[in-house]
Protein backbone atom coordinates (compact mmCIF):
# COMPACT_ATOMS: atom_id res chain seq x y z
CA UNK A 1 0.00 0.00 0.00
CA UNK A 2 1.43 3.42 -0.92
CA UNK A 3 2.53 5.54 1.99
CA UNK A 4 4.03 8.92 2.77
CA UNK A 5 7.62 8.75 3.94
CA UNK A 6 9.64 11.32 5.85
CA UNK A 7 13.32 11.73 6.62
CA UNK A 8 14.99 12.04 9.01
CA UNK A 9 12.90 10.51 11.77
CA UNK A 10 14.71 12.63 14.34
CA UNK A 11 16.76 15.79 13.84
CA UNK A 12 18.70 17.58 16.54
CA UNK A 13 19.99 21.03 15.71
CA UNK A 14 21.35 24.07 17.45
CA UNK A 15 19.41 27.30 17.67
CA UNK A 16 20.04 29.49 14.66
CA UNK A 17 20.89 26.62 12.34
CA UNK A 18 19.01 25.77 9.15
CA UNK A 19 17.16 22.47 8.84
CA UNK A 20 15.51 20.77 5.90
CA UNK A 21 12.83 18.18 6.52
CA UNK A 22 12.09 15.85 3.65
CA UNK A 23 8.93 14.09 2.55
CA UNK A 24 8.00 11.79 -0.30
CA UNK A 25 4.24 12.02 -0.82
CA UNK A 26 2.10 9.28 -2.34
CA UNK A 27 2.90 9.33 -6.05
CA UNK A 28 -0.49 10.17 -7.60
CA UNK A 29 -1.41 12.77 -4.99
CA UNK A 30 -1.69 16.42 -5.96
CA UNK A 31 -2.06 18.22 -2.62
CA UNK A 32 0.72 18.41 -0.07
CA UNK A 33 0.77 19.72 3.46
CA UNK A 34 2.97 20.31 6.46
CA UNK A 35 1.61 20.22 9.99
CA UNK A 36 3.37 20.39 13.32
CA UNK A 37 2.60 19.11 16.77
CA UNK A 38 4.33 20.48 19.84
CA UNK A 39 4.58 17.74 22.46
CA UNK A 40 1.30 17.30 24.30
CA UNK A 41 -0.59 19.71 22.08
CA UNK A 42 -2.87 19.48 19.08
CA UNK A 43 -1.78 19.21 15.46
CA UNK A 44 -1.44 22.61 13.78
CA UNK A 45 -1.59 23.41 10.08
CA UNK A 46 1.48 25.09 8.62
CA UNK A 47 1.13 25.18 4.85
CA UNK A 48 -0.60 23.61 1.88
CA UNK A 49 0.88 23.24 -1.59
CA UNK A 50 -0.84 22.57 -4.89
CA UNK A 51 0.15 22.96 -8.52
CA UNK A 52 3.70 23.90 -7.55
CA UNK A 53 2.76 26.78 -5.34
CA UNK A 54 1.64 27.53 -1.81
CA UNK A 55 -2.15 27.60 -1.63
CA UNK A 56 -2.37 28.60 2.02
CA UNK A 57 -0.10 29.22 4.97
CA UNK A 58 -0.82 29.76 8.64
CA UNK A 59 0.42 32.50 10.94
CA UNK A 60 3.09 30.10 12.16
CA UNK A 61 4.55 29.86 8.66
CA UNK A 62 6.56 33.08 8.72
CA UNK A 63 9.57 34.17 6.65
CA UNK A 64 11.76 31.61 8.40
CA UNK A 65 9.84 28.79 6.72
CA UNK A 66 9.79 27.74 3.09
CA UNK A 67 8.62 24.75 1.10
CA UNK A 68 9.78 23.27 -2.17
CA UNK A 69 8.99 20.44 -4.51
CA UNK A 70 12.43 20.27 -6.11
CA UNK A 71 12.15 17.22 -8.32
CA UNK A 72 8.54 16.12 -8.74
CA UNK A 73 8.68 13.55 -5.97
CA UNK A 74 10.17 15.15 -2.88
CA UNK A 75 8.48 17.84 -0.83
CA UNK A 76 10.67 19.73 1.61
CA UNK A 77 10.18 22.09 4.53
CA UNK A 78 13.08 24.41 5.34
CA UNK A 79 13.47 26.38 8.53
CA UNK A 80 16.19 28.98 7.98
CA UNK A 81 17.15 29.91 11.52
CA UNK A 82 15.69 27.57 14.08
CA UNK A 83 14.40 28.73 17.45
CA UNK A 84 13.84 26.75 20.61
CA UNK A 85 10.08 26.99 20.07
CA UNK A 86 10.40 25.21 16.72
CA UNK A 87 10.96 21.97 18.62
CA UNK A 88 8.04 19.78 17.60
CA UNK A 89 6.95 16.82 15.54
CA UNK A 90 6.57 17.84 11.89
CA UNK A 91 4.16 15.85 9.76
CA UNK A 92 3.95 15.82 6.01
CA UNK A 93 0.64 14.78 4.45
CA UNK A 94 -0.62 14.29 0.94
CA UNK A 95 -4.02 13.81 -0.66
CA UNK A 96 -5.63 13.14 -4.00
CA UNK A 97 -8.37 15.50 -2.83
CA UNK A 98 -9.85 15.52 0.68
CA UNK A 99 -8.52 12.42 2.43
CA UNK A 100 -5.07 13.23 3.78
CA UNK A 101 -2.49 10.58 4.52
CA UNK A 102 0.25 11.41 6.96
CA UNK A 103 3.87 10.42 7.09
CA UNK A 104 5.44 9.09 10.29
CA UNK A 105 6.78 12.52 11.21
CA UNK A 106 10.15 14.10 11.90
CA UNK A 107 10.88 14.94 15.50
CA UNK A 108 12.83 18.20 15.52
CA UNK A 109 14.73 19.11 18.65
CA UNK A 110 16.33 22.56 18.82
CA UNK A 111 18.93 23.01 21.54
Amino acid sequence: EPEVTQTPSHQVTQMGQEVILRCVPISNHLYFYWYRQILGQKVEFLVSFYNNEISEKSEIFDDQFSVERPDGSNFTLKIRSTKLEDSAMYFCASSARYEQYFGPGTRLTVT
Partner: protein
Amino acid sequence: AQTVTQSQPEMSVQEAETVTLSCTYDTSENNYYLFWYKQPPSRQMILVIRQEAYKQQNATENRFSVNFQKAAKSFSLKISDSQLGDTAMYFCAPHVTQGGSEKLVFGKGTKLTVNP
Protein backbone atom coordinates in the same frame (compact mmCIF):
# COMPACT_ATOMS: atom_id res chain seq x y z
CA ALA B 1 -14.49 24.83 10.41
CA GLN B 2 -12.23 26.99 12.53
CA THR B 3 -13.18 25.62 15.93
CA VAL B 4 -13.18 21.97 16.87
CA THR B 5 -14.11 20.89 20.38
CA GLN B 6 -13.33 17.53 21.87
CA SER B 7 -14.76 17.83 25.35
CA GLN B 8 -13.25 14.65 26.80
CA PRO B 9 -9.50 15.08 27.36
CA GLU B 10 -9.20 11.50 28.64
CA MET B 11 -11.34 8.40 28.61
CA SER B 12 -10.88 4.80 29.58
CA VAL B 13 -12.75 1.65 28.66
CA GLN B 14 -12.51 -2.02 29.44
CA GLU B 15 -11.40 -4.36 26.70
CA ALA B 16 -14.34 -5.64 24.60
CA GLU B 17 -16.61 -2.80 25.69
CA THR B 18 -17.90 0.11 23.62
CA VAL B 19 -16.81 3.71 23.96
CA THR B 20 -17.93 6.94 22.28
CA LEU B 21 -15.71 9.96 21.76
CA SER B 22 -17.41 13.28 21.14
CA CYS B 23 -16.59 16.11 18.77
CA THR B 24 -18.35 19.31 17.83
CA TYR B 25 -17.21 21.82 15.24
CA ASP B 26 -18.09 25.15 13.75
CA THR B 27 -18.49 25.69 10.02
CA SER B 28 -20.48 27.82 7.61
CA GLU B 29 -20.00 25.40 4.75
CA ASN B 30 -22.68 23.01 3.51
CA ASN B 31 -20.51 20.38 1.87
CA TYR B 32 -17.42 19.25 3.71
CA TYR B 33 -15.63 16.20 5.01
CA LEU B 34 -14.96 15.06 8.54
CA PHE B 35 -12.25 12.72 9.73
CA TRP B 36 -11.10 10.89 12.82
CA TYR B 37 -7.41 10.22 13.20
CA LYS B 38 -5.72 7.93 15.69
CA GLN B 39 -2.29 8.71 17.12
CA PRO B 40 -0.75 5.81 19.08
CA PRO B 41 2.36 6.28 21.25
CA SER B 42 4.50 6.02 18.10
CA ARG B 43 2.94 9.40 17.16
CA GLN B 44 2.04 8.24 13.66
CA MET B 45 -1.24 9.84 12.49
CA ILE B 46 -3.53 7.10 11.21
CA LEU B 47 -6.77 7.78 9.37
CA VAL B 48 -9.60 5.92 11.11
CA ILE B 49 -12.77 6.96 9.34
CA ARG B 50 -14.26 9.69 7.18
CA GLN B 51 -17.72 11.15 6.68
CA GLU B 52 -19.01 13.23 3.79
CA ALA B 53 -21.39 15.91 5.07
CA TYR B 54 -23.77 15.46 2.15
CA LYS B 55 -24.36 11.83 3.09
CA GLN B 56 -27.04 11.16 5.67
CA GLN B 57 -25.81 7.64 6.33
CA ASN B 58 -23.26 7.36 9.10
CA ALA B 59 -19.90 5.96 8.06
CA THR B 60 -18.75 2.59 9.36
CA GLU B 61 -15.33 1.00 9.19
CA ASN B 62 -15.21 -2.39 10.91
CA ARG B 63 -15.41 -1.70 14.68
CA PHE B 64 -15.44 2.06 14.16
CA SER B 65 -18.56 4.04 13.35
CA VAL B 66 -19.64 7.65 13.58
CA ASN B 67 -22.77 9.45 14.68
CA PHE B 68 -22.95 12.46 12.42
CA GLN B 69 -25.53 15.11 13.32
CA LYS B 70 -25.16 17.82 10.69
CA ALA B 71 -27.59 20.33 12.18
CA ALA B 72 -25.95 20.03 15.57
CA LYS B 73 -22.45 20.02 14.02
CA SER B 74 -21.62 16.94 15.98
CA PHE B 75 -19.39 14.09 14.87
CA SER B 76 -18.82 11.40 17.48
CA LEU B 77 -16.76 8.24 17.09
CA LYS B 78 -17.94 4.92 18.47
CA ILE B 79 -15.47 2.11 19.00
CA SER B 80 -17.07 -1.29 19.51
CA ASP B 81 -15.39 -4.33 21.02
CA SER B 82 -12.46 -2.20 22.19
CA GLN B 83 -9.02 -3.74 21.89
CA LEU B 84 -5.78 -2.97 23.69
CA GLY B 85 -4.36 -1.70 20.40
CA ASP B 86 -7.01 1.01 20.33
CA THR B 87 -5.16 2.81 23.12
CA ALA B 88 -4.16 6.13 21.53
CA MET B 89 -4.96 9.80 21.14
CA TYR B 90 -7.95 10.37 18.88
CA PHE B 91 -8.33 13.57 16.93
CA CYS B 92 -11.43 14.88 15.22
CA ALA B 93 -10.53 16.86 12.10
CA PRO B 94 -12.94 18.61 9.74
CA HIS B 95 -11.60 19.43 6.31
CA VAL B 96 -11.82 23.15 5.59
CA THR B 97 -12.18 24.48 2.06
CA GLN B 98 -13.16 28.08 2.78
CA GLY B 99 -11.68 30.70 0.51
CA GLY B 100 -9.95 28.18 -1.69
CA SER B 101 -7.82 26.78 1.10
CA GLU B 102 -7.57 23.09 1.83
CA LYS B 103 -6.59 21.99 5.30
CA LEU B 104 -7.55 19.90 8.28
CA VAL B 105 -8.40 21.65 11.52
CA PHE B 106 -7.71 19.46 14.52
CA GLY B 107 -9.32 19.28 17.91
CA LYS B 108 -7.19 18.95 21.03
CA GLY B 109 -7.75 15.21 21.10
CA THR B 110 -9.05 12.58 23.47
CA LYS B 111 -6.63 10.21 25.11
CA LEU B 112 -8.24 6.78 25.14
CA THR B 113 -6.93 3.99 27.32
CA VAL B 114 -8.23 0.46 26.87
CA ASN B 115 -7.77 -1.57 30.02
CA PRO B 116 -7.39 -5.36 30.05
